[in-house]
């Protein structure tokens, strides 16, 4: 038997928890998958015995209990798949294919600023935890539409030195977008501009963050989102434009994490 790099297995939901009106977590018992997972990777999920969702849904790994053997995903209801998944009960079986993709690289990082917009937080809580375990100084900057969308502060507190929050409507914390908040935070602070940025969020945020990083000469890694059919490089359905637009990477196998300068954020 060949040694598989990816697991293709069934796993039962052991917990579902609502964080706000549209965000929820699904926890699975899947010890082998948990052991193999690293921050920034994703798993393709399929709800067993549901026929009207055709494709698996790619979901970033949100938390991972390697000792206890669980794996958790943070989902936001945005469409048919995430709505259907929100109705599951503990004990329901999913098909899992993963871990997929190339995650974050923080081997040589001492200081990190994690920047997220909305549901983009999903892959960065796992990253914060793993960074903390390896003595990286982690600062976390979150952006949400409004206070009612805020989540994960409690989960993050043990792992981060500083947690700052921006809301678009000013209902909590910094009034404005997360990149505006980051700009305020790093202004004139040499210790912060020496940190590496790790980010996930909507394209408009990532584009403006990339510009800021170039201005401040900061290194950065971005986790991108893409439609895909397979998740392992076969359908070629998840192109991410190269920085000079001469071709494409695949989000699933070349990413989903890319370095600043390697890619162009598509319109």
């Amino acid at each position, binding site marked *: 038997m*060949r040694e*598989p*790099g*990816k697991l*293709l297995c069934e796993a039962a939901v052991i917990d579902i928890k609502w964080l706000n009106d549209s965000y929820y977590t699904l926890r699975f018992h899947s010890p082998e998958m948990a052991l193999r997972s690293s921050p920034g990777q994703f798993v393709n999920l*399929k709800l067993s015995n549901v026929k*009207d*969702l*055709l*494709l*698996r849904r790619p979901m970033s790994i949100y938390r991972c209990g390697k000792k206890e053997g669980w794996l958790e995903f943070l989902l936001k209801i945005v469409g048919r798949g995430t709505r259907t998944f929100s109705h599951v009960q503990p004990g329901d079986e999913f*098909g899992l*294919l993963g871990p997929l993709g190339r995650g974050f690289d923080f081997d040589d990082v001492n200081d990190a600023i994690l920047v997220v917009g909305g549901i983009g937080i999903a892959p960065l809580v796992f990253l914060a935890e793993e960074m903390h375990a390896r003595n990286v100084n982690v600062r976390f900057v979150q952006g949400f539409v409004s206070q009612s969308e805020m989540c994960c502060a409690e989960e993050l507190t043990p792992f981060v030195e500083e947690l700052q929050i921006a809301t678009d409507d000013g209902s909590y914390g910094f009034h404005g977008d997360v990149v505006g908040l980051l700009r305020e935070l790093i202004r004139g602070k040499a210790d912060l501009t020496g940190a590496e940025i790790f980010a996930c969020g909507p394209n408009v945020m990532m584009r403006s963050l990339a510009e800021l990083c170039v201005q401040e000469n900061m290194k950065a890694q971005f986790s991108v989102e*893409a*439609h*895909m*059919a*397979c998740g*392992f*490089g*076969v*359908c*070629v*359905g*998840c*192109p*991410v*434009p190269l920085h000079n637009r*001469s*071709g*494409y990477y695949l989000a699933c196998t070349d990413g989903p994490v890319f370095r600043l300068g390697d890619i162009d954020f*598509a319109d």
Partner: protein
Amino acid sequence: MQTSLAVRLGKLELKNPILTASGTFGYGQEFDEFVDLNRLGGIITKSVTRNARIGNPPHRIVEVPGGLLNSIGLANVGVESFISDKMPFLRTLQCRKIVNIAGESLEEFAEVLTKLEESPEGIDGYEVNLSCPNVEEGGRTFGKDPKQVFLITQALRKITDRPLIVKLTPDCSDIGQLGLAAQEGGADILSAINTFVGMAIDSRKRKPVLGTVTGGFSGPALKSLALAKVYELGQTVSLPIIGIGGIFTLTDVIEFLLAGASAVQIGTANYIEPRISERLVDQLEGYCQENSIASVSELVGALE
């Protein structure tokens, strides 16, 4: 009881009728960790063109009711890299290796085929993609016109003695005429169907979802449409047919055989269940044993 899954399609012999459809199985190696590739009847590669193609702008994939739309645009490594980088792995396999070729002109098809013919061994046949809906020039235009289908098939026939499969588009008024044209041009086998042209719209943004506006529709909803096309071809041509379209289960496979297909291709299902092709081989074998079918070829066209 002893049962045989072997099928013969003209000069192409398969140990079983389960093939994987072009574009859904990469160059085979991508599935090596999921499937014992040697158990399959064969692999049909991603389309190979003269030069490498970067493919279409995003979005390229969207799920729609009953299936998915794709607009990949024949992204591939090009024929020379295919021969140097992909063929060495394919040559290690014992299943049939069928190379799907595509082009924007008759000359390109001929050039790709000529280059493949010059490469030694490891190729058991060719499938001619005359029906890609995602390339402006070429495929789509050729594929709908029986005269063009005849001319291209005839030109390629002169270049190779290996089994030549012509893959037909369903976006036509009379698939029987396309099949007859390929037959007259010297094709050995027909495969049907490629994707239907489809479109998805984001009403909120008032924009098409796919970067190229339209794309190819595949998935479960295709099955009944594909069965009708395979059946129609079976009534019209004498060539063996490979059925494609929305095959996810053993029952789907059997329905295509009954409709007149001598073999089938598994497409979209590979994305969702990477092990499905091998599982269908197992299930088909079990089915034949349970139903005392000595040879699976007894099922071909056995519609009552």
